């Protein structure tokens, strides 16, 4: 019993099985989270080591290098970069994708454990830090306030951050730029000196006064009382009245030597949201949590929380990554619907009958829902890749059903009962259907084998198409015959009505087309070599187009976000930096109506620590913009970014700036990166500067910048060790003393309403403003004497060397550039040419990194994939036709599909990137299918005794419709993908363009070229046979 006869004989079983599949699919779909891309965990692990007091160069030699040397043996390590800056060594290890990072972390810990004792004594235990996708912010919120501003951070912490943190999946809610309460004790050093006291002593006294202590229990009669001593400050003003010493028998109070201010901490960062003062909140997700779900929950909760906040606090959304995801996914779902409608129309057009169309179209939902089941049970998400895979599959899943139904109809028309026509009609084409499915699977299954980033991406595509196509074949062999046996009936009576009349008109037109094609074939067969010559020249001519088509890595999408980093002259104080920030804000407010929200941070976050941007300082400005939706503006995000660049370039005080649009979210950092390796700072700097200059001149580069920052001016206190020893001082006490006076000493904490605030003692601002203020700092020595700093140390002005970056254990720096209006490939070629013109000093090597490297890796993978697909398709066909030459003839369609892809890209101005490349690979499976239909039927006719030329013409005439039909279903399913301009369309568009171009062109060519080559091959065989015959006859005659 075969599957189709079982299905026909047990229609109810068949029906309920497929209903069950659909129900499962719908269930999976309802429960499936939505995301932009398949989940990709960035394979990065960092090791941070803090060595207080060491300079960048010391860190490099003593910490970074030994660590690097030992860490380089960790398995699966791809790249290792490091940064040595003052106090901190940060090593980042990049692994191959899909490395087990837990194992890698353990290995790293082992290595660190082994070499820890060879590292300097003073280092802190190295921290191993696993970077995860969870670190990428899901949302950035802003909060602005007027009168509530001083307490903003505290209010938000209690009423906003705590509830948000309770949402499942929210990892961390970070707060940036909020004011913090601090109790400052600003000492007048002269007065303190007069009482012969030091800051440290003052701090000690305050700490000792601010104490609550349980003092045991006392029993009074029948009651047991716990006893408690309460010395803690109840009010910050009480600090004023604390006695610190006595002078001539009179008590000396804190207020006599210092000013106590209950105020806000001095800020290193200034946050403005749309020009108003406020702070930024960043919501991060837990690893593996779903962005869209979290954002939804956060938004829901925000609505309620906002009602409870003081009315002057305004909460805004700077960006919400889920918005772009939701929009582009819903756009893609719309595209899927359109594709479905187009496919239905094509089938109806060619078949001309409602019932038959219904039976064929039914295979679409049945097979597509299995993709949802697969996605759900493998824990995947509904994302751009899975949805575009469905669009690709959409046009192909109907093919098998069409072939089966056609044959069943043929049997019915010959006079068999519907039941038997269904069984035997399916039986006759069953093998052919399975074979054609195998060729498609041969293309898509290898996609599940690619490794690396591309693998993470296209594995889903491979599986989804393989599964849906397989299921569609199963449905075509069971559901289609079953439904045909139930629904189709033979009607010899002439059909009347509007439907049949239009279908008759269409039928006439198509018959005309059949005849026309048959005539063309007749001409082609008569002019074989001409056809071959023209086709081959078209193919080779198209190869010249490659020179005009740019290459890129991943299409960038307009997600309505721009961020700008600006550097002013190093060392500029925050107040000055903010002035420039205000000026920029003003320009944007006036001239850029497209920009909906502006978030400006001037300065640097003191809490960002080792994760912060190493180049951030009081002279840097970070701006984040949210634009209105793409439909509501005439300029796209890149045009706006470029206009902003022009605005920035007129500010004389701006040293460098980078304007970034955050497209698909791939390849962190600048798209163009040239790495320059070399030990010597000066030569590498000079070379990099020269290269940067040349790169700026190249068309399409923007914001060319060096990764190595400029040197920073710095004041250094250089102690004279001998003198210091004479005074009984050591480095530790002296450096601490200086720090306590300038940076401040946190003496104790003031407690109020369950919160603690730092009590910080330091010199009043007017006593730490000049060279001599610092020189006159007094340090208490063990003998109880006050010694001035200038007596044992001098202050010198220095330029501190930059941070030392290393990659794979070599010093390097990168020259980075953004792109605008030109493809990555072309710009890279130009840079390459520019470098070749330059004289490369000895000891310097260079390498391209960034997206160009990602692209090269990806293209290498894809070329391999392409070759593998072609090979597998050949294997499937060779076994199907039991011939070596037949598959070759059939696969002649493939090169022309590439011609089509090139043409389409050239015409549409698109670039060859990973997505369009995948489109080209998919084409191998699709175009071969057309060719098979044609050649298979020609073979059949030859087998039935027709001459080759007649067979070719007849096959062409009778197979034109199925070929056009399957081509058009695939083609039209892709059209919405290619022409959509909706949000996020930039990402999937190249695939649509590539497939449409390739498929339509190769179909046109193969309809003529393949039959012609078939006749040539046939003629060759006949000639061979004749030769053999002649020889035999000659032998006989002799």
């Amino acid at each position, binding site marked *: 019993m075969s599957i189709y006869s079982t299905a026909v004989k047990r229609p109810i079983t068949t029906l309920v099985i497929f209903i069950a599949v659909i129900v499962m699919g719908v269930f999976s779909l309802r429960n499936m989270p939505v995301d932009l891309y398949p989940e990709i965990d960035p394979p990065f692990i960092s090791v941070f080591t803090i060595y207080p007091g060491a300079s960048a160069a010391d860190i490099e030699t003593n910490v970074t290098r030994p660590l690097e040397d030992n860490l380089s043996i960790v398995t699966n390590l791809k790249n290792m970069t490091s940064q040595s800056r003052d106090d901190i060594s940060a090593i980042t290890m990049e692994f191959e994708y899909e490395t087990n990072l837990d194992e890698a972390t353990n290995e790293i810990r082992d290595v660190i454990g082994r070499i820890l004792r060879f590292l300097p004594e003073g280092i802190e235990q190295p921290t191993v830090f696993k970077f995860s996708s969870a670190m990428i912010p899901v949302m950035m919120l802003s909060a602005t306030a007027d009168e509530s501003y001083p307490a903003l951070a505290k209010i938000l912490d209690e009423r906003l951050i705590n509830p948000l943190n309770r949402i499942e999946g929210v990892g961390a809610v970070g707060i940036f730029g909020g004011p913090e309460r601090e109790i400052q004790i600003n000492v007048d050093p002269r007065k303190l000196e007069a009482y012969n006291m030091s800051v440290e002593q003052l701090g000690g006294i305050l700490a000792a006064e601010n104490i609550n202590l349980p003092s045991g229990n006392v029993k009074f009669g029948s009651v047991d009382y716990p006893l408690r001593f309460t010395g803690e400050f109840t009010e910050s003003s009480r600090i004023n009245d604390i006695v610190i010493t006595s002078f001539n028998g009179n008590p000396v109070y804190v207020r006599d030597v210092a000013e106590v201010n209950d105020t806000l901490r001095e800020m290193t960062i200034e946050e403005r949201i749309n020009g108003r003062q406020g702070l930024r909140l960043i919501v991060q997700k837990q690893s593996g949590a779903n962005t869209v779900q979290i954002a939804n929950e956060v938004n829901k909760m925000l609505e309620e929380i906002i009602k409870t906040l003081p009315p002057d606090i305004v909460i805004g959304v700077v960006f919400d990554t889920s918005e772009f995801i939701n929009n582009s996914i819903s756009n893609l779902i719309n595209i899927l619907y359109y594709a479905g409608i187009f496919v239905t129309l094509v089938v109806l057009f060619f078949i001309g009958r409602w019932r038959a169309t219904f039976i064929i179209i039914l295979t679409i939902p049945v097979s597509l829902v299995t993709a949802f089941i697969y996605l759900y049970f493998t824990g995947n998400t509904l994302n751009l890749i899975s949805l575009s895979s469905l669009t690709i599959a959409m046009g192909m899943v109907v093919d098998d059903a069409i072939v089966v139904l056609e044959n069943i109809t043929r*049997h019915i028309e*010959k*006079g*068999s*009962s519907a*039941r*038997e*026509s269904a*069984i*035997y*009609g399916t*039986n*006759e*084409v069953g*093998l052919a259907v399975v074979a054609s499915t195998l060729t498609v699977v041969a293309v898509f299954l290898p996609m599940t084998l690619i490794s690396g980033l591309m693998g993470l991406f296209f594995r889903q595509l491979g599986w989804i198409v393989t599964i849906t196509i397989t299921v569609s074949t199963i449905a075509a062999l069971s559901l289609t015959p079953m439904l045909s046996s139930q629904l189709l009936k033979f009607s010899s009576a002439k059909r009347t009505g509007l439907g049949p009349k239009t279908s008759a008109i269409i039928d006439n037109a198509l018959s005309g087309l059949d005849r026309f094609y048959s005539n063309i074939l007749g001409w082609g067969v008569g002019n074989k070599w001409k056809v071959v010559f023209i086709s081959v020249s078209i193919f080779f001519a198209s190869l010249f187009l490659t020179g005009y088509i740019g290459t890129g890595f991943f299409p960038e999408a307009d997600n309505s976000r721009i961020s700008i980093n600006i550097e002013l002259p190093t060392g500029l104080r925050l107040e000055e930096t903010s002035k420039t920030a205000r000026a920029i804000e003003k320009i944007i407010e006036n001239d850029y109506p497209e920009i909906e929200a502006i978030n400006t941070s001037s300065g640097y976050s003191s809490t960002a620590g080792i994760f912060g941007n190493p180049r951030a300082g009081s002279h840097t400005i970070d701006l984040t913009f949210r634009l209105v939706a793409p439909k509501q503006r005439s300029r796209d995000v890149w045009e706006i970014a470029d206009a902003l660049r022009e605005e920035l370039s007129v500010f004389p005080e701006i040293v460098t700036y980078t304007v970034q649009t955050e497209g698909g979210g791939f390849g962190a950092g600048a798209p163009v990166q040239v790495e320059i390796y070399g030990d010597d700072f000066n030569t590498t700097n000079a070379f990099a500067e020269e290269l940067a200059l040349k790169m700026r001149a190249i068309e399409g580069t923007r914001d060319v910048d060096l990764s190595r920052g400029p040197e920073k001016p710095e004041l250094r206190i250089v102690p004279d060790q001998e003198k210091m020893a004479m005074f009984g001082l050591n480095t530790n006490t002296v450096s601490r003393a200086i720090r306590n006076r300038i940076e401040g000493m946190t003496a104790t904490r003031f407690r109020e309403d369950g919160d603690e605030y730092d009590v910080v003692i330091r010199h009043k601002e007017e006593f730490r403003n000049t060279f001599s203020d610092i020189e006159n700092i007094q340090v208490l020595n063990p003998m109880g004497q006050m010694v001035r700093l200038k007596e044992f140390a001098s202050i010198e002005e220095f330029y501190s060397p930059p941070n030392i970056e290393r990659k794979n254990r070599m010093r390097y720096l990168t020259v980075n550039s953004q792109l605008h209006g030109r493809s990555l490939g072309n710009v890279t070629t130009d840079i390459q040419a520019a470098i070749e013109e330059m004289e490369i000093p000895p000891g310097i090597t260079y390498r391209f990194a960034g997206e160009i490297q990602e692209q090269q890796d990806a293209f290498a993978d894809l070329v391999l994939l392409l070759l593998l697909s072609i090979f597998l398709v050949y294997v499937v066909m060779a076994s199907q036709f039991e011939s070596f030459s037949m598959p070759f003839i059939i696969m002649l369609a493939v090169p022309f599909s590439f011609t089509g892809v090139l043409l389409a890209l050239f015409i549409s101005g698109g670039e060859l990137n990973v997505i369009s490349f995948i489109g080209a690979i998919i084409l191998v499976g699709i175009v071969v299918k057309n060719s098979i239909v044609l050649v298979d039927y020609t*073979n*059949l006719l030859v*087998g*039935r005794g027709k001459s080759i030329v007649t067979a070719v013409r007849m096959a062409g005439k009778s197979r034109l419709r199925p070929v056009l039909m399957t081509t058009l279903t695939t083609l039209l399913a892709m059209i919405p993908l290619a022409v959509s301009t909706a949000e996020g369309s930039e990402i999937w568009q190249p695939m649509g363009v590539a497939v449409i171009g390739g498929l339509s062109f190769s179909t046109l060519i193969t309809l003529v070229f393949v039959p012609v080559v078939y006749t040539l091959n046939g003629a060759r065989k006949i000639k061979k046979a004749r030769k053999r015959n002649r020889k035999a006859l000659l032998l006989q005659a002799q």
Partner: protein
Amino acid sequence: MKAVFIVYNQALTERVSEMLDKLNARGFSQWQDVKGRGTHKGEPHMGTHTWPAMNSAVLSVVDESLAQKILDGVSKLNETAEMQGIRAFTWHIEQTV
């Protein structure tokens, strides 16, 4: 007694069985997946890629009157589904056990 041998495109199996049932021809032997082709016209039924269709065959030994009815039925069937192909042959039965 006559033997009636009917070869037909297997897509007609149900119709042939139906006909035999209607005529009360109870006894028969059937072969499935029989290959063959006609002398004059029609597609060969070979079960190959070139000629994918297959035949079935029925041998029924019946009274002479019934044999004629069966032949009539077959020719009627042939008229409605000429393209599918059905043929019937009869001969005498000399002895039965």
